[in-house]
C-alpha cells in the first residue's frame, strides 16, 4: 500500500501532467502485476463496491475519538471528504510496518473485500485497527476503498501514455485494450504487458 500511496501523492495535487506522467510510468513499470491492475482500475475511475457507508465510518470515528459531533461536522465541512476527515482526526497509534508494506492487491482482495459479508462488529474492529496502525495517507486510501469513493480520476490520455511508456506498447494499442470490459487481475495485466489476446 505504501508504494501506491507514494503514487497517489504524486497524482493528488494540482501540478503538471509531465510530473504525473512520469510518476505513473515509474509505478506501472515496476509494480507487481496484480497491484498494477488494481491501480489502473481505481485510477481510471471504475467504481469500487461500497463495503461500509461513510456515515457508519463517521459514527465509529465519533465513538472512538470522543470528539463532539459539532467538531467532527465542522472538520468535515472544512475538509470536504469523509475518508480524509477520518484520516486526519483519528488519533494515530504505533504504525504497523508489515500492514503498510502489504501490496495494494492484498489489501483490496484479502482485507477489504472480505469485510463485505462480515458482521458490523467485526467490520468495526478491523477498520478501527487499520485506522490506528496506518499513517494518514494509507488510512485515507483504505477509507476511500472501503466506502467506494475513490474518485481521483486520472485523465485517460495520461494513463494511456504512461502505460505505453512503462510497457513499451503503442498507446493506440493500449487505448484499444482498455476500452473493453476488463477486470483487474494478474492475467489482465500480463496480457496488457505482453500484448497477448487471451483473457480479453
Amino acid at each position, binding site marked *: 500500500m505504501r508504494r501506491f500511496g507514494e503514487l497517489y501523492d504524486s497524482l*493528488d495535487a494540482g501540478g*503538471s501532467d*509531465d510530473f504525473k506522467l*512520469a510518476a505513473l510510468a*515509474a509505478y506501472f513499470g515496476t509494480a507487481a502485476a496484480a497491484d498494477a491492475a488494481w491501480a489502473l482500475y481505481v485510477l481510471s475511475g471504475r467504481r469500487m463496491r461500497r463495503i461500509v457507508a461513510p456515515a457508519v465510518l463517521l459514527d465509529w470515528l465519533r465513538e472512538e475519538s470522543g470528539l463532539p459531533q459539532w467538531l467532527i461536522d465542522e472538520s468535515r465541512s472544512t*475538509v470536504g*471528504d469523509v475518508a*480524509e476527515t477520518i484520516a*486526519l*482526526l483519528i488519533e494515530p497509534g504505533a504504525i504497523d510496518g508489515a500492514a503498510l508494506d502489504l501490496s495494494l492487491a492484498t489489501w483490496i482482495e484479502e482485507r477489504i473485500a472480505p469485510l463485505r459479508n462480515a458482521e458490523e462488529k467485526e467490520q468495526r474492529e478491523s477498520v478501527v485497527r487499520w485506522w490506528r496502525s496506518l499513517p494518514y495517507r494509507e488510512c485515507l486510501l483504505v477509507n476511500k476503498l472501503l466506502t467506494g469513493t475513490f474518485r481521483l480520476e486520472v485523465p485517460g490520455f495520461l494513463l494511456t501514455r504512461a502505460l505505453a511508456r512503462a510497457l513499451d506498447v503503442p498507446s493506440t494499442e493500449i487505448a484499444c485494450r482498455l476500452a473493453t470490459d476488463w477486470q483487474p487481475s494478474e492475467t489482465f495485466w500480463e496480457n496488457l504487458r505482453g500484448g497477448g489476446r487471451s483473457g480479453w
Partner: protein
Amino acid sequence: MSSDSAPLVVASGRGLYCPPGDFYIDPQRPVQTAVITHAHGDHLRDGSARYILARPGLGIARMRLGRRADVTAVEYGAPVRIGETTVSLHPAGHILGSAQVRIEHGGRVWVVSGDYKRQPDPTCAPFTPLECDVFVSEATFALPVYRWPETAEVIEDIVRWWRFNRERRVASVLFCYALGKAQRVLAELASFTSEPVHVHDTVEALVQVYREAGVTMVPTLRAQSTRTADYAGALVVAPPSTAGTRWMQRFGRYSSGFCSGWMRLRGSRRRQSFDRGFVISDHADWHALLRTFRETGARRILLHHGHTDTLTRLLRERGVDVDALETAHGALP
C-alpha cells in the same frame, strides 16, 4: 474596571497594545515603542520610533529595518522595564529570534505568544512554556484536522521527490517562505545530504544571516545561472512569489513542491499548481495549542489570528475561560 482587573493587552487598530506599558506588540502602523515577536513582514514593519526584540533576531531585523532604526536587542529571559511594566522575551520556536512577550504588572503576568510551534527546529531555540495568568495565543491552525507529521518523515519525502526528478534530469523547485521555512528545510536536509542546494537571492541573503547566527545548513549556491543544463537534477529553494514568474524560465522543465501547513488538506493541495505539497509548518497544530494552554496553567486564554471560533467553543465546553481577543475588551482605534 479596577486596575487589578484591567487588561494588560488589548486589541487596537494598530495591533496589540499594552496600556500600562504604553507599547505595542508587532504594530501594523508606526508607533513610539514596538515590541517585536519576530521579523516576518506582517509582524515587523518599519516606521516606529523604537523597537525592542530578542537578540537572536537582531541580524534579520537590521536587514529589514536598516542600520539607522532604533533597535534594542535583549537576551531571552532578561527583564526590561517599559512604562509601568516589566517585560521579558522568551523563545517561541517559530523562526530564528522569535519570541513570546511576558508582561508583568501589579502582580499579574500576561504572555503574548506571537507565532509559535512545538516541533523541534534546528534553526531556533525551542518554545518555552511560561506560567501566566492570561495567555494570548495565535490560532492559525486551530482545527483538529491540523496535525503535523514528524518533520524527518517529510524531509525524507522531499529527498525521495528530488531523487525521482534527478533520475529524469529535471530540476526540483521547492517553494518555501524565504525567512524561516527555507532555512529550516535547508538545516533539516543536512541530516540527509551534503550536496549543495540552489537558492533564490532572497533566500540566500537570509541564509547568510542564519549562518552568522551559527545555524548549520546544507551548502547553498545562488541560482544566478540562466543555463537550464546547470539545474538538471538539482534541488532549488525559492520563495512562493517566484512561482510562475520569468525567473523560473532558467530551470526549463522542472517539478514544483510547496512547504506549508496548509498542504495538510487535499483540497488545498489540489487547488495549488504544485506537483507536491509538503506539510511543514512553523505554527502550532491543534494538539500543540491545547498542550501549550495546559502547560502555561493560564486561568484565561485569549485567542487571535485564525480559527478562533472553533477553539473558543471547544475550550468553553471544557470549562476554560476563553475569548477571542478582538471581542474580549473591544478594540481601541
